[in-house]
């Protein structure tokens, strides 16, 4: 499903461009959920921006494809329409655009790019009510401008709300657990698990093993210095929790 081969990418303006992703290879087959863990500054968020096509992140080598389609040639919106979704580590405030308006615009824009008809107003409202209730987002909250003045945890819930509304083929969750209280961690995880399906893949970036108790990964990768340096099963996350990166990476080096 998602296939990255020897990917290298730089961040920053031309003369100050810095290589952050440095020969990264990774494959997430359809139906699987993989976790990425790694020290601060390892390049985890950078990887998510490279894959979603953010300006200023330049791929200098290797390849990245989703279901065999080259991602790197496409605009961010085309990648989204192909089903790639990023839950941002730091969700962005969009002043003046209510959550509902935003999600509906996004949903219909994606459908249009895919050549599908728009969602009907009643269907949209029904679906947003159901998912909002599931994530403890009140209808008043969904009328407010997106992310403006929302608490850290609320913003993360709104990211997952958007994901569940948009039903992407492949989702990258960048530290969605940070800022969530204990109950919210459970509701968000339930939402994520509800989306697990044989056609869908996910990459879950996290620092904490706790999330992986709720969202059981098929594999755990350790990303350091811009590449995957260790891959294992769920038990790798537990080992990292106990021994720290020094312990585990010392052995890898």
């Amino acid at each position: 499903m998602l296939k990255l081969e020897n990917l290298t990418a730089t961040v920053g303006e031309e003369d100050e461009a810095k290589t952050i992703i440095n020969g990264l290879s990774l494959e997430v087959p359809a139906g699987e959920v993989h976790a990425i863990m790694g020290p601060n500054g390892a390049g985890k968020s950078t990887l998510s921006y490279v894959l979603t096509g953010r300006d200023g992140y330049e791929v200098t080598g290797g390849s990245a494809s989703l279901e065999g389609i080259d991602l790197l040639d496409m605009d961010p919106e085309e990648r989204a329409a192909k089903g790639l979704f990023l839950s941002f580590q730091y969700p962005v405030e969009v002043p003046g655009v209510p959550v509902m308006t935003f999600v509906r615009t996004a949903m219909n824009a994606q459908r249009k790019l895919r050549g599908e008809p728009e969602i009907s107003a009643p269907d949209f409202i029904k679906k947003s009510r159901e998912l909002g209730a599931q994530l403890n987002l009140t209808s008043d909250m969904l009328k407010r401008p997106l992310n403006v003045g929302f608490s850290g945890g609320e913003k993360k819930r709104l990211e997952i709300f958007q994901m569940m509304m948009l039903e992407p083929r492949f989702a990258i969750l960048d530290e969605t657990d940070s800022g969530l209280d204990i109950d919210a961690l459970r509701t968000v995880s339930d939402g994520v698990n509800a989306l697990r399906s044989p056609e869908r893949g996910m990459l879950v970036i996290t620092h904490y093993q706790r999330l992986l108790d709720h969202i059981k990964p098929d594999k755990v990768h350790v990303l350091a210095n811009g590449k995957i340096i260790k891959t294992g099963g769920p038990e790798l996350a537990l080992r990292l929790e106990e021994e720290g990166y020094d312990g585990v990476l010392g052995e890898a080096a």
Partner: protein
Amino acid sequence: MTVSMDALKDKFRNPGSAELELIARYAMLPGSSQRERAFEAFAETGLPHRRMEAWKWTDFKAALKQVEASKNAADNAALAAPGQSVIEFTPDGVVLPDNVPAGIKLHERNEAQALGAAEEVPLGAMTAALSGRVGGLDTLIIEVNEPTEQPLHIVTRGDRGETNFARVAVIVRPGASLDLIESHLGGAGFSSFLIELGMQEGGAVSRTILQRGKTDEAQAITAVVTLGEKSEYTQTALAFGAKVARLETRLKHQESGSHATLNGAYLCASGYHADFTSHVRHGAPSSITRQVTKGAVLDGGTGVFQGKFLVPRTVGQHTDADMQHQALLLEDGAEVFAKPELEIYADDVECAHGNTSGALDPNQLFYMRQRGIPEAEARALLTEAFVAEALEEASETAQEALLDAARRFLTDSVR
């Protein structure tokens, strides 16, 4: 009128051919002392131009080499809905509605006492001197005697004429209220509208304005507003500009406790120029002014904001005034000029102002694109949300139409 053209010409310094045509028009109109006074005031400056401080960014003299018919029909999108009460000004004269809202009286006058300040604005003076026609009325007086609910619309459309000049005076009696909606649709080479609005104690006026023009047209919308005790004036304007377009408002808090809101938004595509200029005098204690002006400009477009609050020491105590101007430069080559001014002599006041211009936030754009919203649509949506704040206080009757007009423009022009 039996004045010689030469004598009239001599009142101007270096009249250009556009001014000569305006002088010739004046000579044909029925004379009156009011009209003469306005003409003298106009002759002081002629068509305003860049060497005058208040007009340095908006040069009517340069834009109006000649008074020529517009090649364009007026825009059709008036804010008025069918069945509503509409006063329409065209080069052929004025058409009054049969269904004037209860509580309002319309008087046609050949002379109207100017509020005075009109003559301080060159294009106000010009309009006062040149509105009207032989055998027609000069000024329409709108007398509002009661609180009124039904909106009153004014539409100006140029019908491919050379000029379309109109003058309106509004008198709002104590406790009376008016929902005034104006659509200035261009369509003449030179359109100018002057409105003088006097509000008496406890009066309330909501004034909502749409301005549209074309790149071969000059347009001026000049308002002189006087606020009586505890009166309330709310103005919301949406301007798309023209070759030059100026919306100028001179407002005076004459008695204490009055409240003014002066909001506006300009959206300028290539070749369009929109100027919001205002002068607010806190000539009485404990009055409030709130002003929010927003703009979004594309490559080759020009936006101008000039705002001034004047708070004299002796009369302006306890003034509460806030002026905000924020502009979005949507593309390289977009131009915005801004001059916010607070001139405050009273010491016990709360006055603030803010002025920013910049581009859209790339983080917001990326976030939206990641969700599948194409870049142009994301830019249009963010710009609409930005501008909408300045239209929030518009009359309920016209707010949706204003937002639609802004949205249509942004959807069509933002890349």
